[in-house]
């Protein structure tokens, strides 16, 4: 059984199902992390990751290897998350208002255990989760995962120009929330926001 990702991809493309399972084992935590950052909750992230691997499995023969398997998987995950969030929004099961703040409910993010995690990351994560999903998707894919604008636009089904506008707005909101300048302090922000990330 090959262990290198590229070898696993080659074997899986040749119909080796255990090799694809091994690919899943090697990459699912990262795919989940991205899905969680895009959707903002564990349940949606789980659904998105399952959809993403199913699509990856079905489309593996079309993977040309121009980018790494991880990057390809990120694109699929982003696309699945976008579809998932759009469907959820259409169904009105759970509308996310612009100012909603999603609180991470996993044990490792719980207040009691939070001491182990850097406060900066925690604040940044919370700030990201406070963004509307469409803005969050663009800034996560661009500034965290370094995907090109073109790929982001393609996976989210928007124009490159729209992707850039969303990115700049998202950066501005994050900057204002995390690093407010004098005169930008909102009521209740207080000292916590002045401490830089």
């Amino acid at each position, binding site marked *: 059984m090959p262990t290198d990702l590229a070898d696993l991809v080659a074997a899986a493309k040749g119909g080796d199902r255990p090799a694809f*399972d091994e690919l899943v084992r090697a990459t699912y935590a990262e795919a989940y*992390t991205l899905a969680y950052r895009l959707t903002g909750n564990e349940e949606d992230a789980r659904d998105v990751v399952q959809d993403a691997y199913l699509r990856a499995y079905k489309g593996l023969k079309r993977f040309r290897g121009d980018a790494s398997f991880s990057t390809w998987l990120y694109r699929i995950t982003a696309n699945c998350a976008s579809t998932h969030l759009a469907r959820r929004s259409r169904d009105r099961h759970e509308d996310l208002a612009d100012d909603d703040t999603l609180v991470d409910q*996993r044990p490792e993010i719980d207040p009691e255990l939070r001491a182990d995690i850097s406060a900066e990351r925690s604040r940044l994560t919370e700030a990201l989760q406070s963004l509307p999903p469409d803005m969050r998707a663009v800034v996560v894919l661009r500034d965290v*995962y370094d995907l090109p604008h073109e790929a982001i636009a393609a996976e989210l089904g928007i124009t490159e120009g729209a992707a850039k506008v969303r990115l700049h707005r998202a950066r501005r909101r*994050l*900057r204002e929330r995390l690093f407010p300048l004098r005169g930008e302090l909102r009521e209740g922000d207080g000292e916590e926001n002045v401490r830089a990330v």
Partner: protein
Amino acid sequence: MQCDQIAELLPQVVDHHERADASVVRHVDSCLRCQAELAQYRKLLRALHQLRTEVLEPAPGMLPAILARLESAGERGAVRSLLSGRRAAYVGGLAVATAAAGAAGAIVLAGRGRRKMRVA
């Protein structure tokens, strides 16, 4: 240019993906407020980029769930291809039988025609 106008452009130029206009550069070089704001954007981008190294721990049941779904999709695909294979064989068999029946009919008709000609 005014600080407000520059502030609109800073999120675009902070990662050097888009070139800053010379007038923007001149303003930022001479304006402490805009320099401070640009520095905050840079800090934000560094922090975001560092998030890339953080991998969250998925719930324990996630991996088996993904593999089970792939397995079931694989089985469905196999059944589908088996069924489509059988369907193709069935349609092919029908076509061969029809062609054979047609050929046999043609031979019988041709034989009768020849017999009539001999009688005449």
